[in-house]
């Protein structure tokens, strides 16, 4: 295995009784990447994290984290990684300092190193003004920064963040991502799960898991160019109109439009490229729908995941039939 690989998962399987939560999932995360792991609730994201962090035994396959086999070496794996769960696992009746000290001691940091690391983390996360405050009294954004600080004290080279931005305000969300980019620049690898598509766009590598199956894996740009997302001979356009609902109803019945959805004041449609954009505008106008603009559009990651999910569902139904 190359030294540049932080995580390698090969054919991961996890069963709970008859239910297969993770079904033959394979991927690799390079060192220094921000790896975005996406999928709907209950699709197996957290289960994969638990398998990679040694919390859950594997039912099948193998996983190497930081060059160590999680099945045989889980204690060493746990020394090298940091983990921040979605509910910011802090002790609310302890102060910021006490929380940091506790996690530092748990990882066995000797006093001098603990002191140095706490200073660094307080500086990096801007926790200075809150050191003597109880964790319970911090706002969501500060709780999350403290939790991240606790997960980083022992200088892990790989951090697992399970929905780090769930329920925190947009400013704190942006600040967290700025911090992740900064740390990633220092060679730290991040494994991040999220529901936010704009966060997914910021990742250097994304994967999408759908009911236990990995259905997408690559850089955001490479995923946009997948044939399943952008079939040969099609074009993605944005139609800006003041009457989006009427326009949508109409557009869906036009031959040559494969799919259409509303995005705010516009419609995103996948059309066959033999379709002339001017013709489309004429047809809409003829039906009394004012159109301010029609322009070609690159697919968003959301488009990517929607298309791949449809494709996967169709495959599943075909297999069942």
């Amino acid at each position, binding site marked *: 295995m190359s030294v540049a690989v932080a995580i390698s998962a090969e054919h991961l399987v996890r069963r709970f009784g008859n239910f297969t939560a993770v079904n033959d999932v394979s991927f690799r995360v390079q060192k220094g990447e921000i790896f975005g792991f996406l999928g709907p609730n209950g699709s197996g994201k957290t289960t994969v994290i638990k398998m990679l962090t040694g919390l*859950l035994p594997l039912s099948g396959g193998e996983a190497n984290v930081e060059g160590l086999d999680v099945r045989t070496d889980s204690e060493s794996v746990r020394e090298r990684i940091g983990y921040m769960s979605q509910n910011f696992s802090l*002790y*609310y*009746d*302890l102060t910021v300092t*006490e929380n940091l000290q*506790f996690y530092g*001691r*748990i*990882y066995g940091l000797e006093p001098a190193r603990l002191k140095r690391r706490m200073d660094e983390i307080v500086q990096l996360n801007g926790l200075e003004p809150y050191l003597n405050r109880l964790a319970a009294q911090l706002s969501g954004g500060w709780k999350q920064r403290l939790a991240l600080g606790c997960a980083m004290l022992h200088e892990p080279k790989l951090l697992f963040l399970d929905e780090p931005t769930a329920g925190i305000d947009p400013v704190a969300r942006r600040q967290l991502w700025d911090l992740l980019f900064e740390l990633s620049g220092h060679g730290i690898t991040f494994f991040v799960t999220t529901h936010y598509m704009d966060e997914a766009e910021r990742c250097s590598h994304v994967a999408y898991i759908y009911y236990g199956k990995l259905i997408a894996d690559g850089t955001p740009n490479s995923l946009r160019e997948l044939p399943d997302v952008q079939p040969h001979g099609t074009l993605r356009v944005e139609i800006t109109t003041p009457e989006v609902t009427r326009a949508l109803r109409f557009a869906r019945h036009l031959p040559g439009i494969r799919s259409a959805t509303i995005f705010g004041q516009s419609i995103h449609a996948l059309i066959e490229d033999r379709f002339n954009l001017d013709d489309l505008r004429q047809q809409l106008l003829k039906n009394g729908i004012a159109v301010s603009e029609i322009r070609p559009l690159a697919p968003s990651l959301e488009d990517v995941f929607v298309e791949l999910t449809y494709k996967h569902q169709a495959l599943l139904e075909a297999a069942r039939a």
Partner: protein
Amino acid sequence: MRNFFRGFGAVFYKEVLHVRRDPATLFFSLVIPLLQMVVLGFGIDTNIRQINTIVFNADGRRESRELLDRLKNSDTFHIIRYVENDGDLNDAIIAGKARVGIKIPVDYSDRLLHNMSAQVLVLIDGSDSSVAGQAINVTTAIGLDESLRRVLQDRASFAVDMRPKMLFNPDSRSPNFFLPGLTAILLLNVTTFLTAFSIVREKERGTLEQLFVTPVRPMGLLFGKLLPYLAIGFSELCLILTFMRFVFQVPIHGNVLILAFLSLPYLFVSLSIGILVSSKANSQSEAIQLAFLTFLPSIFFSGYIFPRETMPVIFYVISYFIPASYYINITRGIILRGAGLSHLWLDGLALYAMGSILLLIAARRFQNKVIMA
């Protein structure tokens, strides 16, 4: 070995902080058992005295009145009313106004004077077996004594003279018997809840899961949790003993230091029960229910209320698996009988063994199960 207990120091220090940050919980967990002790200690008297008694004295002459005086003087009967017919006698018992009805027939004195056998009817409400038993014993004894005195009119001494002598608790004071046993139940209560809650809280908060992603070892975690609460349980023991000695005036015949020493394994078992409860329970209310499941056998099958020797065989066997059985033997042994280590070391050893087994089971459960939740 060091590695096996990895994380112990960090967890221990953190638990101490939790306790310090929440003095109210500490205060209540120390004071409420004392309140329970005061209520139970003053409120419960296991000696049966002054049973409500109703009398139908159809005779009414000196001999019959003497008999009633003897019954009254036994301290067992309290005559609440005299009635004039059988119907009223029966009614008073059925209505629950009296537990015992005594009917002295009209020819009682006559028959005695003619050296014939006189009968006295004693009706006893059997709905409370201990009251009924006491009433039977005392009336029979008084009847027998009365007969003997009449037979041996020359006042010669009895052929056989039984002289029962009660050792250790000569006044049959209830608190003396009751409180050493209660100590076991109160300590179990406090320590089980404290540890169970401290772990279940971490489950609810998600911090337990976080701890399992760190290199902390189950034994480091469990002992870090256990020791601070062992200290609290031990303080509780000191408070209970102080109360018992100076408020309830229960003399401690044995060595208090040996009692303290042998209390450690019992606290250890109780704390391990708490940990085992927390490995199963996912919320504090679940923990309360599970903890009660362990309290009831400790109260009923440990010898605290009913003597173990009179239990049906199956329960007698079960009582050997209940830590409180051993500890009640220890507390009663040292406090009432003045027993020492040479009498009680086996009980202490049994408790250590139980505690270790429970803790190992709990550690295994934490290693395998909790992380799945």
